[in-house]
């Protein structure tokens, strides 16, 4: 037996699309409380908000993330099957000569008294995109501490550098991408002749987001199209991960520094799958990326 709701109900008068009355004092009070809580959340220290977010991700939102992970895995496997098959054939062909070259390399390193070269240990992860416009600045990755992901390790894609793991939860981790305003990485040109710092551009171009290659000495000139890679300085990113290509000079600071515009190689908004580098010591060859 349907009965009309009392006036104290959460339903507005005239439910079913009718015109409701103006907001009551209790509505306004609830709205103000929610606003104050939201502003409090914005002002919360990063450590506290990070811990709260991680706790919620591992409890209340875990089923939703599990569901999204299954969906992304399904899409990735469907979309990439053909490309993977082609790559596998190419790699299988290249691997035919790899054992011989590897053995020769080991013999030569032994002759020179060098220790064995450390390999790059990686953990694969799916990117769980969200629908808000700030999504590309931080990414939720489907691998966490349970899969062996530590915090402060680089995240890469087949094209180059994506960013850094800033927090690793039990099942998921959060990566800060190059598009985040706080992102910085020590970089050099591919030959290692010119050093600088790569950071996101504070201004937004009409067509696409750019990076800046800052702190380049005025005497050094970098031509357009030059590949910029991580320098390995600072101990977080290994040397050799491609970041972007120089697209021109952005500004010159009083004759002592040049800032170059850098077209990033990776688009965080379109990434489906990434690799988390857990071995920082190993240098990487830029040729390994495409």
């Amino acid at each position, binding site marked *: *037996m*349907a*009965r009309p709701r009392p006036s104290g109900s*959460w*339903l*507005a008068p005239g*439910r*079913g*699309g009718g*015109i*409701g*009355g*103006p*907001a009551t004092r209790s*509505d*306004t009070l*609830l*709205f103000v409380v*929610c*606003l104050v*809580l*939201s*502003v409090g*959340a*914005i002002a*919360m220290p*990063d450590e506290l*908000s*990070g811990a*709260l*977010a991680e706790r*919620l*991700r591992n409890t209340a*939102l875990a089923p*939703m993330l599990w*569901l*999204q992970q*299954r*969906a992304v895995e399904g899409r990735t496997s469907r979309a990439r099957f053909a490309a993977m098959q082609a790559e596998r054939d190419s790699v299988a062909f290249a691997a035919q000569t790899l054992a011989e070259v590897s053995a020769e390399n080991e013999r030569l390193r032994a002759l020179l008294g060098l220790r064995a070269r450390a390999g790059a240990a990686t953990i694969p992860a799916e990117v*769980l995109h*969200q*629908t*808000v*416009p*700030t*999504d590309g*600045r*931080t990414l*939720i990755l489907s691998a966490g501490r349970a899969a062996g992901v530590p915090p402060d390790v680089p995240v890469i894609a087949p094209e180059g550098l994506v960013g850094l793991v800033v927090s690793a939860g039990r099942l998921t981790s*959060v990566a800060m991408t190059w598009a*985040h*305003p706080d992102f910085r990485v020590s970089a050099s040109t591919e030959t290692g002749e010119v050093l600088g710092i790569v950071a996101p551009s*504070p*201004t*937004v*171009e*009409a*067509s*696409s*987001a750019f990076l800046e290659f800052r702190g380049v000495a005025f005497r050094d000139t970098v031509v357009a199209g030059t590949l910029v890679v991580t320098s390995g300085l600072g101990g977080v990113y290994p040397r050799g991960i491609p970041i972007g290509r120089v697209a021109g000079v952005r500004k010159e600071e009083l004759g002592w520094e040049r800032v170059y515009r850098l077209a990033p190689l990776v688009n965080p908004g379109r990434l489906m799958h990434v690799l988390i580098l857990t071995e920082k010591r190993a240098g990487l060859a830029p040729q390994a990326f495409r």
Partner: protein
Amino acid sequence: MNLRRGAGRLILGFVLLVALHFYARPRLWDSRAAPDFLLLALMLFAIRARPGMAALAGFVVGLGADVLTPAHFGAGALSHTVVGYLAAWGRAVFFPHNLMVNAGFFAGAVILRNLILLLASGSGSALLGPDFLVWSTLQAITTAVAGTVILMFFRNWFAIRVA
């Protein structure tokens, strides 16, 4: 009995939207232009709820968005709270019996949410960039289309009258 059945269908409707958001959306669309089914659920709730409850629902949905995109924690909660409250309050102004008015309502909510979100996260300059001008517009259109389709087929579940 009818009331219980109605409540059951309403809950099922919201569960369907959550499932669409986390399972169907990542399989089908580019996330930047994909319809935001959680915002759609908030709007469908706000259309029939009191402004205070809609603000609270917006806060909860926004907090969830902040947890999943922790670039600027709290910005999502703020933007969804404002959108939820204004949507419930604005029912009195925008007579929501027309399907096209509802579609415009959903699109406007996406634009307003993204505008407040970018401003609250200190990204005012992004309002002139592709994040807002291109992707927000596309997302508003896809969300409006998805909302219209859902209203056409499931309006009884959400107890919304549409002419």
